[in-house]
């Protein structure tokens, strides 16, 4: 009997270990493949020049258009998502604290929004764009991606806020703070490390998403200088250039993938560092 338990323990431990480490191995494998493939193309030109002779057929130049376009869209969308998401998450945790049922319902809808596939956001953004008489543009891309990532900001931040003990809120209210002061002066501060995680998670999703910008931001060889101009993005740079018959163009796709991966890695590392830094003042 005891022997059987011991064997069971051993088998389960190895299986769980394999599951864990194989995930890490897959991540390592992805990074290796992307970098090996993109390495030849990953030149200085790649990050300083736009494609020459068209992104599909021209072999020269780089993907600066997509880097800039992606950063514009992800930054703009994150900004909007934070402006909407932060008050929303605070509202759920301070003003709705008395209304548990509403709180649960709101969270349920936000979770549903989070789960909607990005291509659906893309289609919705496209419809909205046509309805408003806009063209595929930086602005349309920003709005669509903002819709896509706003639920991420709200729910991730909300998750952290909801862990703050109610006693803390009580003692702040007991001092005579209004709910708004409690939310924006204290809860925001206490939840700040979580907010950073939320922002960077949302930014990462925004910069990496192809489907939502496919119809809304369009694609171009140029760097957009106005909100109503189309914008290239890194995910679409990978998508379009990978199908090109020209080998140099295909290499550019891998370079774009490498750049995107680097950006995402930088974001997740800085998320950890920043949120640790801002954890110093919070009350445990």
């Amino acid at each position: 009997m005891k022997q059987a338990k011991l064997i069971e323990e051993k088998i389960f431990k190895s299986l769980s270990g394999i599951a864990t480490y194989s995930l890490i191995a897959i991540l390592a494998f992805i990074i290796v493949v992307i970098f090996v493939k993109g390495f030849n193309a990953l030149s200085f030109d790649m990050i300083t020049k736009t494609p020459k002779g068209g992104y599909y057929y021209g072999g020269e130049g780089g993907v600066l258009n997509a880097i800039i376009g992606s950063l514009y869209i992800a930054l703009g969308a994150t900004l909007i998502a934070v402006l909407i998401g932060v008050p929303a998450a605070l509202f759920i945790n301070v003003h709705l604290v008395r209304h548990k049922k509403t709180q649960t319902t709101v969270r349920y809808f936000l979770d549903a929004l989070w789960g909607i596939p990005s291509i659906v956001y893309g289609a919705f953004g496209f419809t909205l764009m046509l309805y408003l008489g806009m063209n595929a543009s930086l602005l349309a891309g920003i709005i669509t991606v903002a819709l896509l990532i706003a639920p991420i900001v709200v729910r991730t931040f909300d998750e952290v806020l909801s862990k703050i003990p109610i006693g803390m809120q009580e003692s702040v209210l007991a001092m005579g703070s209004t709910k708004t002061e409690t939310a924006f002066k204290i809860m925001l501060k206490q939840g700040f490390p979580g907010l950073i995680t939320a922002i960077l998670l949302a930014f990462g999703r925004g910069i990496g998403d192809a489907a939502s910008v496919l119809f809304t931001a369009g694609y171009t060889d140029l760097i957009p200088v106005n909100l109503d101009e189309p914008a290239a993005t890194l995910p679409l740079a990978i998508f379009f250039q990978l199908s090109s018959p020209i080998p140099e163009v295909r290499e550019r796709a891998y370079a774009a993938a490498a750049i995107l991966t680097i950006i995402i890695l930088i974001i997740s590392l800085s998320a950890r560092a920043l949120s640790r830094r801002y954890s110093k003042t919070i009350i445990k």
Partner: protein
Amino acid sequence: MELVQAKVMTPSPLKATRHEKASVPSAISIKNLDVHAPGHHILKNINLEIPKNKVTVLLGPSGCGKTTLLKSLNRLTDLYKELNVTGTINIDGDDILNTRQNVADLRQKMGLLSQRPYPLPMSIYKNVAYGLRLKGIKDKKLIAHNIEKNLREVGLWDEVKDRLNTPANNLSIGQQQRLCLARGLAVKPLIILADEPTSALDPMSSSTIEKLFREIKSHYTIVLVTHILRQAKRLADNVVFMYYGEIIEQGAPDDIFKNPKTEKLRQYMLEGN
């Protein structure tokens, strides 16, 4: 202190007839207070006069409604939709349950010390400054002066004066509780509500807090919930014994502790010692 207490407690023949009520004015006057939760009558027809600038101690077994009573006094019960609070609570000439007055303004008249201290997620300095700023005090010098004064009052100044700008969460629990008391006192409340303020603290910090209460008690109306009978004896001017949502005995500590009238209180005191 002893003298003042004696004066109040010994009914002088003159005062007893004419000014009995006026000699111990109420800071808080509770009438027909009921608190219902779904399927649970938490507070049952509470009628209580809490004397001004005295310590009123709430005693009673766990779950009898002491915290709920305290929270009704500063309307923290508002945070819980399931609680239905009815009756009247008169504070400073205003029925706080049915007032038009802003609940935030109302709460500024009271300080709250909870079981576990909750300093604000900011520096020690800002913890005390926060309440002052809420009150509309902007003068930096005045704020700095007040901070020093109140941190001295709770005996924290020497311990923290060189690190006022470091986060308050670095303080020990006992120091945090004293900081919370300092920030409460800084805004000059009329009333201090304390819900087992020493139960999470080490003996040293507990006795510091207790000592502070003794020092300040002639200037504030203090409502103190405690499970520590000896603490109640040391601090109370007025003892209220609650049982299952009802007040079943109240009076001066000498009467209550020496001659409990009900079996329940006798039992409670036996178990407490």
